[in-house]
């Protein structure tokens, strides 16, 4: 609630709207105790007195009634009717929507088609029909306005409910023995209420306007009772001669509706989780670079070289050191594995290479990334864009999320090629088929006109790989490309990647959490923990003789096929959060070999031969492991 008010107050317009609305509501609330003239007493001798004349600050109307008094009483009535209509419409609409969305099937179908029919009528026509049937009067106008707005709420809430009703926590509630009614009231409703509030805050102004409209037509409040609409309606005949009688209620309607709408927009923005998470703030085209220290000199190791790379996320006043000084290299035709758990910084390392970490909040704060010797950190966006896909290509975990759902896969492949060189339609088509054949897509010529949803997960990932190959890159960075796939499909994809790197001399950086995959595909492997490399070396050597306690324990806690039923050796505790890293070794708290010196100072990555480890008390001495 506090956060909500803070967010709301940050929006200046919403704040202004809120203050104005509160003033109006306050005035209306104290109206009964204000020393005002009776709003309904006519005094034709004093008709059409101008504003600021004696005894009538806002003047009088065509029957000599005090306009200020009528305005305040009228505003009170209009606001009350508007709010009441909004609450009635929201309650009814939400009930209908929740029932339709929760039960689904035929219930949903029948209810929603009824709502559709209601929506097919122009709202004013429908309201007129309702009032005509019930007879004029303020209460009937309220009924009409509420009825007209029910479909809006019903459709809105139904959509949200359908999404929630299929969530696992609803199933869990069923299994806990809750009845349907109780599930609706305690599981669904609390999750829908923010949406109802948002919908209400954006429509309440509209409802006040509609009520005023009906009163204006003489179908709402009946004389002598004043509301804003009827005041306007009565003043209409004197619009030219005595405009102030129309201007007074008109300005009040303007003020109310404006302030409610501004406030409503603010409420929506403050409550909507998507807006809160910053979905509307567009990330920059390349990650922000703020390097303080000197740029490390090129060493000429490998085609892609990361030198002491540091990437941070700046969220409010916290700094998350996602990548805390990573040095790696990969040669042509080589496959380097990066293994680690979620939050270890492996994906951020990969995305930093081409400046793909979203900024804000991402910042590359140090180190260098060299492609063939050229430093890419801080390279102009043009240069990065030119290299993305052409020199360094990415394959991501979820191909359904990375492919555009509305374009055929062939079109997307051609688009990927066109980003780097002009290609004709026919030639593009041919090249797309070639690419799909290269990733061993059966029936490639036919499949290029499929949409992504028409393919299975394995086939989609093949398209993802074909797209990465489209511009003959030298380096492919694959971020858990097989994690979402079934084992039989995973085996096919891994075999294909292995083939491609041998036949095309590709350098592959393969990010995973699976030692089995690393063992089969990668020449060398780097183990990451809390944003740093803790161990690195040739895969076979590391699997044979791991030196860092984390590597050892990580390998031990993953079951391997063929070892039978057994108790697993779990690692106790949780990985540290990277905004509060401890001094010394980040793994110390979970390590069984920990000693006092592990918790102080910086522990360096020690290197012997082709093995490296960041540990003071390794499981196997590094010298021995390197032999």
């Amino acid at each position: 609630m506090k956060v909500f008010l803070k967010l709301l107050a940050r929006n200046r317009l919403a704040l202004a709207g809120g203050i104005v609305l509160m003033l109006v509501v306050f005035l209306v609330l104290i109206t009964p105790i204000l020393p005002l003239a009776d709003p309904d007493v006519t005094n034709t001798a004093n008709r059409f007195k101008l504003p600021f004349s004696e005894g009538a600050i806002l003047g009088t109307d065509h029957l000599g009634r005090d306009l200020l008094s009528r305005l305040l009483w009228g505003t009170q009535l209009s606001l009350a009717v508007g709010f009441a209509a909004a609450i009635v419409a929201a309650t009814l609409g939400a009930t209908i929507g929740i029932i339709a969305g929760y039960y689904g099937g035929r219930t949903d179908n029948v209810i929603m088609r009824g709502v559709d029919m209601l929506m097919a009528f122009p709202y004013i026509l429908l309201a007129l029909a309702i009032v005509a049937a019930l007879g004029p009067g303020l209460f009937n106008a309220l009924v009409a306005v509420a009825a007209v707005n029910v479909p809006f709420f019903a459709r809105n809430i139904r959509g949200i409910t359908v999404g929630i009703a299929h969530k696992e926590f609803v199933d869990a509630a069923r299994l806990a023995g809750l009845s349907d009614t109780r599930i609706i009231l305690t599981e669904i409703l609390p999750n829908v209420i923010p949406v109802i509030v948002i919908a209400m805050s954006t429509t309440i102004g509209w409802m006040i306007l509609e009520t005023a409209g009906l009163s204006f037509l003489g179908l709402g409040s009946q004389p002598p009772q004043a509301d804003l609409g009827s005041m306007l309606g009565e003043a209409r005949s004197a619009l030219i001669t005595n405009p102030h009688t129309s201007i007074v209620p008109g300005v009040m309607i303007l003020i109310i509706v404006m302030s409610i709408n501004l406030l409503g927009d603010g409420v929506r923005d403050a409550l909507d989780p998507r807006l809160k998470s910053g979905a509307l703030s567009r990330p920059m085209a390349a990650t922000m670079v703020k390097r303080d220290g000197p740029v490390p000199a090129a060493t000429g190791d490998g085609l892609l070289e990361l030198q002491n790379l540091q990437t941070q996320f700046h969220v409010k006043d916290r700094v998350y050191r996602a990548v805390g000084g990573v040095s790696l290299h990969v040669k042509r035709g080589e496959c380097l594995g990066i293994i680690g758990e979620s939050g270890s910084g492996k994906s951020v390392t990969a995305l930093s290479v081409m400046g793909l970490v979203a900024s804000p909040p991402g910042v590359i704060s140090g180190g260098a990334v060299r492609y063939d010797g050229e430093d890419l950190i801080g390279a102009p966006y043009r240069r990065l864009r030119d290299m993305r896909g052409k020199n360094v290509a990415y394959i991501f975990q979820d191909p359904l999320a990375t492919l555009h759902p509305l374009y055929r896969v062939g079109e997307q492949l051609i688009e990927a090629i066109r980003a780097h060189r002009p290609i004709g339609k026919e030639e593009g088509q041919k090249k797309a088929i070639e690419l799909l054949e290269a990733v061993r897509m059966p029936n490639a010529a036919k499949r290029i006109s499929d949409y992504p949803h028409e393919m299975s997960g394995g086939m989609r990932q093949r398209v993802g790989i074909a797209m990465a190959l489209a511009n003959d890159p030298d380096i492919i960075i694959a971020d858990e490309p097989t994690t979402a796939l079934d084992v039989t499909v995973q085996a096919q994809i891994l075999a294909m990647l292995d083939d491609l790197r041998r036949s095309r001399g590709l350098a592959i950086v393969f990010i995973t959490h699976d030692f089995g995959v690393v063992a089969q595909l990668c020449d060398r492997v780097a183990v990451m923990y809390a944003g740093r490399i803790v161990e690195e070396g040739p895969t076979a050597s590391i699997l044979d003789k791991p030196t860092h306690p984390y590597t050892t324990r990580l390998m031990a806690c993953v079951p391997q096929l063929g070892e039978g039923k057994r108790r697993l050796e779990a690692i106790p505790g949780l990985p540290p959060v990277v905004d509060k890293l401890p001094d010394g070794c980040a793994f110390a708290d979970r390590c069984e070999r920990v000693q006092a010196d592990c918790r102080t100072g910086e522990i360096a990555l020690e290197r012997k031969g082709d093995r490296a480890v960041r540990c003071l008390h390794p499981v196997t001495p590094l010298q021995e492991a390197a032999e």
Partner: protein
Amino acid sequence: MTAALKLTDLSKTFYLGGTLFGGPTGSVKAVHPITLTVEHGDTLGIVGESGCGKSTLARMLVGLLNPTTGQIEIEGAALDNADPADFGKRIQYVFQDPISSLNPRKTIRQIMEAPLKRLHGMDKPERNKRIAEIFASVNLREEFLDRYPHEFSGGQAQRIGIARALAANARILILDEPVSALDVSIQAQVLNLLADLKSEFDLTYLFISHDLAVVEAVSDRIAVLYFGSVVEIGPAKDIFRAPRHPYTKLLADSAPVVGRALKAPEAKDTELPDPLNPPPGCSFAARCAYASERCRTEVPSLSESNGKTSVACFHPLGND
């Protein structure tokens, strides 16, 4: 002693394209008739790839889905109507995604109290006592009870999910991919916890997963599901070591194992059969190297073939 769980010809067909007035235009057989028994205190692992019907099967077992045909018998009592509250006391479910299985707007205490109140009608002091007991068993601190789900890590949230399932006091737990959303180092913690709880509360598990190594490490028996049917079922220690169904062999060969060279175990790039248009014979025939004419026209049934493992195949491996 009766079996903990007995399924007889349990199947599920989904009908597609139902409209306001017209009938369905097509149907998908998500689960073909399955008959199997889980002994008391056993862990039955169920493995299969996406779309093989393992989640549909699990949802029928707890009464979240109405079976099209067949019967579920829990500890000797037949449950014919899909009423989750009726099932809830006997069989409970642990969900794959620990966070989304907890209502974001309820405190952990409210979540934990629901089954105690609704299924067992306990009063307040009784409930508090029981919650304290369960939380101690799953190694959670009681101060967590007044927090909301988003304040927990995946591993903690999954412990809460397990605690909720235990609160219902059911003797059978369906574990639907309980660790696949967790990090590997946390996976082992949760798997060990599950093993401890099993002996502490004398539970029977149905452990569903796509991860062969995990299933092998926790199960006594394993059933392999392909395209809605059980194609092989047998002791966990034998099933991947000496697979008898060609599909089980394919699975075992595909799993990445340290020290085994990389090769695609399948030469052809095949996909699952179309569920709207199922093949007439064995559903694996199109991918199978041993398929004969008979396989393409006749559906093999699950039959005991060497005393331990049952297999649904006309040409099972390892017979010669």
